[in-house]
């Protein structure tokens, strides 16, 4: 493993109430992050519904690493590195397909979809077939799933996925509970938005409850949405540190106060009667109503999966100042009427002509340009420090617009990068 900039004084760059600007711009820090975060901790890669059939595969990533997620004939899911073991060409190029084997287009080396090298042309040039045993595709050593979400870790050993997710498992449980079959599907396709900003600008923004009334005022206005008001000074919503860098904007106190099923989604049960009937049949009318009032989670799962109620964002750093955000609509398995609406809303907010992500992306790129300025050297994340408190479950929470999530992210970041916990 490459050495990781040991000279960087993490404890001096990250303080409880402020972080140093170089954390967003320094190529050495970015290289260290790849090694200590992206190539060590659990990273979200894809969902089982993206490879539903035996021999299906899709192209994915872990940061800049190109990954093939394949399902073999027995149903097991593999995360293989998309690099021919001969001269490093990409073995697969199509975004998805179905094949039990992959043939590199450069010299014809052929691999099974489990990574085994099946052979190469004109093998006398290698004095036989001995190389076959040692030159299988690289693989992500640990693969694990939670509620159908597939994660990979480049660390051979370390915390299990469930240990890493910790309290964030509740976000996945809440998400699938809204599905009448108890399963979600990521089958709507992925949009990719590239922006010239460091990946942590995005990570911190996803659970920043301070910006929506400013950055997103236009979409709230056009859509006649009341969501913006939930991120105000009078809101009873809270932001929460879920541990391990996972953070949340919990709007349930407001939704419960309003007590309107599907109010979080800006609609009413009579607009999606089939879906509501299915959910009531599964959970019972009373529980279904509670679930429909509470709505879907708004949780940033460190480091790269943002569960944003009806859509998912996946953060992929590609350079110190460049990030690709992959976006898809959540689809509940077996709920076509609700799925249609979730897809429409996703297109409206994050599609090519959508307002929401375009607004955020503008902020990310402005942030990246602004942080180049020499003075001040620090970014302030002190908002709400004086009113942090513990909730009934022992988690640190703050008011809706406070910066508890940003402080939580940096605290975990520092522990991973080698600073004092």
């Amino acid at each position: 493993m490459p050495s990781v900039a040991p000279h960087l004084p993490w404890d001096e760059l990250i303080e409880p109430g402020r972080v140093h600007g170089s954390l967003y711009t320094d190529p050495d820090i970015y290289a260290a992050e790849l090694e200590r975060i992206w190539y060590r901790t659990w990273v979200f890669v894809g969902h089982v519904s993206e490879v539903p059939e035996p021999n299906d595969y899709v192209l994915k990533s872990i940061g800049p690493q190109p990954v093939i997620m394949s399902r073999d004939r027995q149903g097991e899911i593999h995360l293989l590195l998309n690099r021919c073991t001969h001269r490093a060409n990409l073995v697969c190029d199509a975004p998805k397909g179905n094949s039990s084997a992959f043939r590199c287009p450069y010299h014809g080396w052929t691999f099974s979809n489990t990574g085994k090298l099946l052979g190469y042309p004109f093998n006398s040039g290698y004095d036989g077939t001995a190389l076959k045993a040692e030159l299988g595709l690289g693989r992500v050593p640990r693969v694990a799933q939670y509620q159908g979400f597939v994660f990979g870790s480049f660390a051979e050993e370390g915390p299990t996925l469930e240990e890493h997710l910790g309290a964030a498992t509740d976000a996945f449980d809440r998400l699938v509970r809204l599905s009448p079959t108890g399963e979600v599907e990521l089958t709507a396709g992925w949009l990719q938005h590239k922006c010239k900003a460091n990946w942590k600008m995005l990570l911190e923004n996803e659970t920043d409850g301070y910006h929506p009334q400013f950055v997103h005022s236009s979409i709230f206005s056009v859509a006649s949405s009341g969501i913006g008001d939930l991120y105000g000074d009078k809101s009873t919503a809270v932001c929460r540190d879920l541990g391990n860098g996972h953070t949340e904007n919990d709007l349930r106190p407001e939704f419960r106060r309003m007590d309107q099923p599907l109010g979080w989604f800006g609609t009413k049960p009579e607009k999606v009667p089939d879906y509501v009937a299915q959910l009531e049949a599964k959970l019972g009318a009373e529980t279904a109503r509670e679930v429909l009032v509470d709505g879907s989670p708004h949780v940033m799962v460190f480091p790269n999966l943002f569960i944003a109620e009806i859509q998912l964002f996946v953060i992929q750093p590609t350079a110190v100042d460049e990030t690709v955000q992959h976006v898809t609509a959540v689809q509940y398995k077996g709920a076509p009427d609700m799925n249609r609406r979730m897809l429409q809303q996703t297109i409206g907010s994050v599609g090519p002509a959508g307002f929401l992500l375009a607004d955020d992306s503008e902020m990310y790129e402005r942030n990246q340009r602004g942080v180049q300025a020499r003075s001040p050297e620090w970014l302030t994340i002190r908002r709400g420090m004086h009113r942090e408190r513990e909730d009934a479950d022992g988690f640190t929470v703050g008011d809706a617009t406070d910066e508890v999530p940003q402080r939580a992210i940096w605290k975990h970041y520092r522990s991973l990068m080698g600073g004092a916990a």
Partner: protein
Amino acid sequence: MARGGRSGVGELSSEFASVHVSIDLEGNGPRLRVEDLRTGQVGFLDPLELETLAWLPEGALHRFLDPSLHRWRAES
């Protein structure tokens, strides 16, 4: 089924290969005709061979996917 001709089945393509498969009726019994659209190479599979394929265990065909086995065989 009438003797002669071919009934089209269709074209299958991936990023690795493109083939056209059809049912060939030129012989005394039907065969599956597989044409490699990138080279024009044609192969046939009779019903018993196809049934055997359906029963192959995982990975049994992979032996034949070694490029050196037939198509790009070393000369020695």
